[in-house]
């Protein structure tokens, strides 16, 4: 796998690098020029996943070790811990390579769940604005919950997810129903879209106002008291 400049990725060593070389294939990345390299990476990853083609992808954020993505296995390989994930790299170099569906793995380990990486990229990209592939005003509903035991999430994410898991909502409706910050809502929607767990609900009726117990206050309900008990 090589990038457009011909630089070979096989010069990268370590457990997270591919174990063997492959013919060069590169894909020019779309450019959004926002100053955050994750914008381009998110757009590229979304496009690749829409193609549903088996691919390996390398993302190299400015100043960071490269991230190798094994899309067929929904895994990624990175030397660094997720705590070191750069939130706003000025650029991210993107290299792709098509592989056979049944090709053996190039990596020495099973890697980490791709959802962790997509969640981080989706949260960071687009500065809280809608991802370019989303249309303003459309309503969304989850097709499945994210695996919260492995994602770096907040209670607010869980609250918002419970709403959008039970009713189709637009970003603004979700912000109102969950009494959440609209930017945080949009970041989560972007991330879920990148994770592929969101569907657009065309023509859904407006969702009625929701008077859920205020889970943020100790007296607000059973859940609020339980969280208070646990110091959460």
């Amino acid at each position: 796998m090589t990038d457009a400049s011909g630089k070979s990725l096989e010069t990268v060593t370590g457990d997270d690098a591919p174990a063997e070389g492959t013919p060069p294939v590169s894909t020019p990345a779309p450019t959004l020029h926002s100053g955050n390299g994750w914008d381009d990476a998110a757009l590229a990853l979304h496009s690749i996943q829409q193609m549903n083609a088996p691919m390996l992808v390398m993302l190299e954020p400015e100043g960071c070790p490269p991230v190798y993505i094994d899309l067929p296995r929904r895994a990624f390989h990175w030397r660094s811990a997720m705590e070191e994930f750069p939130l706003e790299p000025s650029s991210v170099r993107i290299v792709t390579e098509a592989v056979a569906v049944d090709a053996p793995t190039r990596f020495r380990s099973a890697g980490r769940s791709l959802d962790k990486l997509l969640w981080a990229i989706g949260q960071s990209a687009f500065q809280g604005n809608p991802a370019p592939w989303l249309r303003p005003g459309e309503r969304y509903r989850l097709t499945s919950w994210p695996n919260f035991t492995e994602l770096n999430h907040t209670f607010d994410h869980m609250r918002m997810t419970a709403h959008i898991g039970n009713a189709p909502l637009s970003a603004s409706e979700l912000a109102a129903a969950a009494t959440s910050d609209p930017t945080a809502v949009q970041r989560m929607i972007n991330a879920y879209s990148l994770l592929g767990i969101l569907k657009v609900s065309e023509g859904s009726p407006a969702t009625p106002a929701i008077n859920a117990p205020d889970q943020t206050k100790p007296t607000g309900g059973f859940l609020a008291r339980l969280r208070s008990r646990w110091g959460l």
Partner: protein
Amino acid sequence: MAEHVILFAGPMGAGKSTAIRSLSEIEVVATEAGNSDRESVDKPTTTVALDYGEITLGDDEKVRLYGIPGQRRFDFMWEILKDRAVGMVLLINNDSPDPLLQLREFLDYFADLYSRGGIVVAVTRSDIARTPKLAEYSAAIAAHTPDMIIPVFSVDARNTEQMRTTLITLILNVETRAAIIGAETLKND
């Protein structure tokens, strides 16, 4: 005394007792049942019938955690407890012979809990058996009941933080769903 009953169900070996130990503030009480069903299970020793743990929320409020046995010969206990339950954590060990079949069987039995959003699926031992993937569980649930989405998490039942996330999700989903249904009912009246 206000009480909130949470069930922990699933096949043998899925981690029900461990999950309750991760959450309970008291020493978990394990009751045993003599094996009166030697035709189905040829085991002379007693079998754990019920685990019990609790979380105290105040002087007059408790969360009661019941681990109910996986074998169908104990389904009378399921019947007794499910009507009192806020919800259920369904633990499935990923290395069992047919985890998706077990998932469907439990969903069938606990359909009324399921319909009010009161189930979270917690998949254990996915580090040992990498398949089925969580997406396959979600797909099986979607095929079973297309209108409902059940949270599916991978968990280590020994991990208190993960089990708390699971329990919070369960309660959050029940409360949110009830609020949405309540609002829709008001709108339609």
